[in-house]
């Protein structure tokens, strides 16, 4: 106050002295005019910077003054800006003021002048304007150089949506200048003959590298331009927030606004200012900043975050209490202790927040797919007892904390895993059995299901099976079976047994599962019922059993066709009379068999019902092999007795018989049906699946039919197969068969009898001439080794004459009537001696039979095949002889007219020098010294050559 009084006194004294000076020396008012006015330019920012001072102030004098500034463009009379600038002025103080021009300063000459006045209430008498300063001219154009064309402003940086003024300065009056913005011509206003101005409003962002604006002269290759760097609007930071973890450091975060366009010219800066402490920090990062809280700082903080770039400054504010923004550190020293089968204790520590703060901690326990959550208040040390845990189970426990008084954020979780201890199994194993009788023994296969994790309460080490003979209760047998076995096979005598099965882990034994095996298997015959399966399974029901039943068991095989059928069972209570059996293993088209047992009070199962069914029936997979029988002109019978309907993927409900015929109408009992190939046929429906035969009746004789049989289930018929063709016989053919067959049989019988008769006659009347080769004499001769004695071989004889027997046609004589006829000889050898002169030769007659072609007058020409008689031999037909000898000797018998000659013989000459009986004489030998004989040979039927031998009539036999 004293200081103020002194200052006031001094000021008044100075003012008085000033007034005295005014009145006494100058006798006129003193003006405080601005002096030393200087104007400089900043082209990039398009700014005029003015600086001046006021010299007429007294020493230490300080006055409020106002300065009026005028700015003119092109000429001084064209004032474009007038502004009053108020400030406090000291003696010789340099005052500064800036003005930003919309028009680039290069576009026109600018002039500035100013005047001042005291604007201080303490000296109201000085409130008048001083004189104007002289005009200060700013002419940038004169320093541009000599280029013909300039465009301004250069490389200007503006925000999207701004208004920008552009100009060009041309040095030539003759050129017509055109200006373009990104290729689009602009139209401006002529500022003076050399300068044109373009006003761009609301400029858009086009690309990061800026917008090209250029001007060209219509003549020459002059092009000049500028790049207008347009940034996107600089946005203020979002989500500004501060928090502390230890009350010593604040971490402030925010989301910076969208990118301004990646312009390198637009680097952004972020500043954090706290108003209560007056401290400020420049943030190093774009999205977060740390702030150190002094130890004696107040709890309240008022922050201002300022984001700034070349063009704009954005600020956001945040006022908060430090203790309300506590984000605790994660708990540490977390342990799980005293872990038993059902309990465990979790302990942890927290970082303290202040002296009296309490933390709220949250504990989460994960195990067996469940989550248990608990909250605990903690100062420094936390402890929590976790109860009702499952034995032998893995758990995960985690804890996090927050400020209990002013919740802000949870800390991060700290997690620990642990496993509870084991306990004895809680449930008895689910046991079932399969009983078979093998060689007088009872083979019991026990099955049990593994205990679930919750039931086992630990790792099952073994299953105990105790067998107790009910007839001799003192007899016990114990078996220990380790997992993973889930069953065992027991061979028992026929005695009754009670079987107890328990599961054991390291801690103890489960309750026992009891099942009894009776000496009587009790598999009474129960009729099987059909049951229809659905997608959800098989719905089975049974009649409730009178008497004491402790429960029911449904048994089935999941793989019925497999020897290891994968036996399954389901235990049901005594009050249950129905259940749904479902399994992922059920497949369509597979027949499943279910057995329902009742469990007696003695734990003996006995069979109640049997069910069978398909989860989904399919059409039959194959068709039966159909046999056709009893084919008549009007019917035939089909049978398919070997067809196994039980192996089909559905219950066979009958058969469909398709019959195709040329008849337009279907027979009674059938109906028209269209096949998959659009052909039409008749269909018989056989509804009885057990029927395995079918008679197709009412057919037409001598008609063609096709049939095809297929079974059908509830879903449909079996696959379409090939039709079997059948033609019904003619109506009279069976009559013919009945007549002709006996006739043929009779003829054959007569023929056989005749043959036998002829054989008998032959034996009795003209027995066979003994074969000299087979004579016992021959062996005698050989033994004496007499070379002169030999047997003439018939083959070696050369015929010398042919006896021709003339037979009267139509005459037929019996054997008894036959007279010896004098034969006619044709002498084939030219020698006279052969028959006339006496010689050593002995001549025999040789009659060889030749059967005529027929036994009647129809006897005709007998064809002779040359190949049929390649060799001479008496066993060949009679034609062979002459033919083999050549046509020079005789005519072929084939040329002999029928009726003239029908029996021939050949006389043969046997050479005494003949050799191998199989060899043929190639040259006819001389018939010297040979013996001649005649013999008779009957040619057996079987030895006759096929083309020339026919069956002789009985009456034609000759000798």
């Amino acid at each position, binding site marked *: 106050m004293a200081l103020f009084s002194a200052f006031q006194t001094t000021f008044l004294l100075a003012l008085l002295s000033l007034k005295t000076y005014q009145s006494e020396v100058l006798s006129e008012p003193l003006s405080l005019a601005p002096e030393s006015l200087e104007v400089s330019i900043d082209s990039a920012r398009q700014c005029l910077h003015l600086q001046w001072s006021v010299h007429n102030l007294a020493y230490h004098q300080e006055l409020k003054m106002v300065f009026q500034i005028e700015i003119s463009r092109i000429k001084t009379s064209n004032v474009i800006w007038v502004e009053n600038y108020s400030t406090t002025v000291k003696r010789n103080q340099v005052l500064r003021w800036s003005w930003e021009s919309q028009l680039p300063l290069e576009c026109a000459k600018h002039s500035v002048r100013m005047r001042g006045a005291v604007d201080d209430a303490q000296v109201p008498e000085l409130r008048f304007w001083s004189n104007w300063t002289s005009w200060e001219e700013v002419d940038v154009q004169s320093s541009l150089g000599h280029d013909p064309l300039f465009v301004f402003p250069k490389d200007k940086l503006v925000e999207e949506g701004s208004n920008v003024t552009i100009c060009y300065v041309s040095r030539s009056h003759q050129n017509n200048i055109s200006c373009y913005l990104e*290729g689009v011509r602009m139209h401006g206003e002529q500022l003076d003959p050399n300068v044109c101005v373009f006003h761009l409003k609301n400029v858009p962002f086009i690309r990061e590298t800026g917008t090209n604006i250029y001007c060209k002269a219509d003549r020459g290759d002059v092009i000049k331009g500028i790049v207008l760097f347009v940034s996107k609007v600089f946005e203020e930071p979002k989500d500004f927030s501060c928090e502390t973890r230890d009350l010593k450091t604040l971490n402030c975060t925010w989301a910076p606004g969208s990118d301004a366009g990646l312009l390198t010219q637009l680097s952004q800066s972020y500043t954090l200012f706290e108003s209560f402490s007056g401290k400020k920090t420049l943030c190093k990062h774009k999205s977060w900043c740390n702030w150190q809280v002094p130890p004696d700082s107040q709890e309240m903080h008022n922050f201002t975050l300022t984001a700034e770039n070349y063009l704009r400054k954005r600020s956001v504010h945040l006022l908060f209490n430090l203790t309300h923004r506590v984000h605790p550190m994660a708990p540490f020293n977390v342990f799980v202790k005293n872990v038993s089968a059902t309990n465990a204790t979790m302990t942890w520590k927290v970082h303290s927040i202040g002296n009296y703060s309490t933390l709220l901690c949250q504990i989460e326990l994960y195990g067996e797919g469940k989550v248990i959550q608990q909250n605990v208040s903690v100062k420094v040390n936390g402890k929590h007892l976790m109860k009702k845990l499952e034995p032998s189970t893995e758990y995960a426990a985690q804890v996090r904390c927050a400020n209990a008084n002013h919740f802000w954020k949870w800390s991060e979780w700290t997690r620990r895993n642990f496993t509870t201890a084991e306990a004895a199994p809680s449930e008895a194993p689910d046991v079932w059995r399969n009983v078979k009788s093998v060689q007088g023994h009872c083979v019991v296969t026990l099955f049990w299901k593994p205990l679930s994790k919750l039931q086992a309460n630990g790792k099952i080490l073994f299953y105990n099976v105790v067998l107790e003979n009910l007839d001799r209760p003192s007899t016990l047998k114990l078996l220990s079976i380790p997992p993973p076995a889930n069953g065992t096979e027991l061979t028992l005598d026929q005695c009754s047994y009670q079987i107890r099965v328990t599961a054991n882990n390291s801690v103890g034994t489960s309750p026992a599962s009891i099942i009894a095996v009776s000496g009587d298997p009790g598999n009474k015959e129960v009729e099987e019922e059909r049951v229809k399966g659905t997608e959800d399974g098989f719905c089975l029901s049974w009649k409730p059993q009178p008497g004491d039943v402790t429960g029911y068991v449904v048994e089935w095989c999941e793989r019925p066709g497999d020897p290891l059928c994968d036996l399954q069972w389901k235990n049901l209570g005594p009050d249950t009379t129905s259940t749904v059996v479902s399994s992922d293993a059920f497949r369509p088209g597979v027949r499943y068999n279910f057995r329902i047992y009742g469990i007696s009070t003695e734990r003996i199962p006995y069979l109640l019902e049997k069910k069978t069914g398909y989860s989904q029936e399919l059409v039959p997979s194959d068709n039966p092999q159909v046999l056709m029988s009893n084919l008549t002109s009007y019917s035939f019978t089909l049978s398919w007795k070997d067809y196994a309907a039980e192996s089909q993927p559905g219950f066979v409900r009958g058969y469909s018989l398709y019959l195709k015929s040329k008849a337009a109408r279907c027979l009674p009992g059938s109906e028209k049906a269209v096949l998959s190939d659009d052909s039409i046929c008749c269909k018989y429906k056989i509804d009885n699946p057990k029927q395995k035969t079918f008679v197709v009746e009412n057919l037409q004789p001598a008609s063609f039919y096709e049939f095809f049989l297929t079974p059908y289930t509830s879903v449909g018929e079996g696959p379409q197969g090939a039709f079997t063709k059948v033609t019904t016989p003619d109506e009279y053919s069976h009559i013919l068969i009945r007549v002709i067959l006996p006739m043929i049989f009779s003829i054959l019988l007569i023929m056989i009898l005749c043959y036998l008769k002829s054989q008998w006659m032959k034996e009795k009347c003209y027995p066979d001439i003994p074969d000299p080769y087979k004579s016992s004499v021959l062996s005698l001769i050989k033994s004496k080794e007499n070379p002169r004695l030999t047997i003439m071989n018939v083959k070696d004889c050369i015929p010398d004459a042919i006896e021709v027997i003339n037979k009267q046609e139509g005459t037929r004589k019996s054997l008894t009537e036959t007279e010896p006829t004098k034969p006619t000889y044709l002498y084939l050898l030219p020698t006279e001696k052969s028959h006339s002169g006496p010689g050593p030769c002995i001549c025999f007659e040789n009659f060889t039979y030749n059967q005529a072609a027929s036994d009647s007058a129809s006897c005709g020409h007998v064809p002779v095949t040359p190949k049929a008689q390649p060799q001479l031999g008496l066993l060949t037909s009679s034609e062979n002889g002459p033919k083999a000898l050549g046509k020079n000797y005789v005519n072929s018998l084939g040329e002999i007219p029928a009726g003239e000659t029908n029996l021939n013989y050949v006389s043969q000459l046997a050479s005494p020098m003949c050799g191998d009986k199989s060899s043929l004489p190639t040259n006819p030998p001389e018939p010297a010294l040979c013996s001649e004989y005649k013999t008779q040979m009957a040619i057996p039927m079987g030895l006759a050559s096929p083309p020339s031998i026919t069956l002789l009539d009985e009456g034609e036999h000759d000798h």
Partner: protein
Amino acid sequence: MLALCDLGLVLGLLFLSTPAMGSCLDNYQELLGQLQKQADFMQHTSMLLDHYISIQGLDKDGLKEHCQERPGVFPSKDALQRLSRQEFLQILNNTLGHVLHRLRTLQKDIPKAQDLEKLNIAKLNIRGFKNNIHCMAQLLPGSLEKTEPTPTGPGASPSPTPISDAFQRRLEGCRFLHGYHRFMHSVGQVFREWGQSPSRSRRHSPRRGLRKGTHRTHLSSRNKRLMPRGWLPR
């Protein structure tokens, strides 16, 4: 897909450029073939110029017509053809050094990283090409003046006059790249003439059968650099 193909081609060319791996091919024809292919590849404006025009917004009517090569910046084809082989290689090496330096300058006006990719690939290409030029110079007999292998220092070429005006800078950059592609086209043609007439060199013919990994004469760029004699108007 096209970019991928381009990248594959570039990598292929770089791997062809065996000097980059530390040794030179001693097969003259093979090396000449590589130089031809590389020059043919680098002459395409799609490798550099088109991309530059696009990102700088110069693809506008009335503006792109001014993106023409400024005479005298690059040697003309005629001037190149008049040079001896050794001189040609020397000029080529120096000019490409200048191009590399200029590309580094142009890089400053490209703000986005993805837009720089083409420029960087082009720089890699030029470095590989310069290495092959060096190898070719090794194969030419009797040459005392050898080209130097890359990398060439930034001072290897005259600094362009600094232009503060962004518009003028990008227009000059466009003109420069236009000239560069034209120059590479001419270089490819000269190399092709080498292949057609092996004895055309006025003074030298290629040495054949040089041993692999031949020693190189690394001359000081400060003392031995040839000033381009062929900087003549086309």
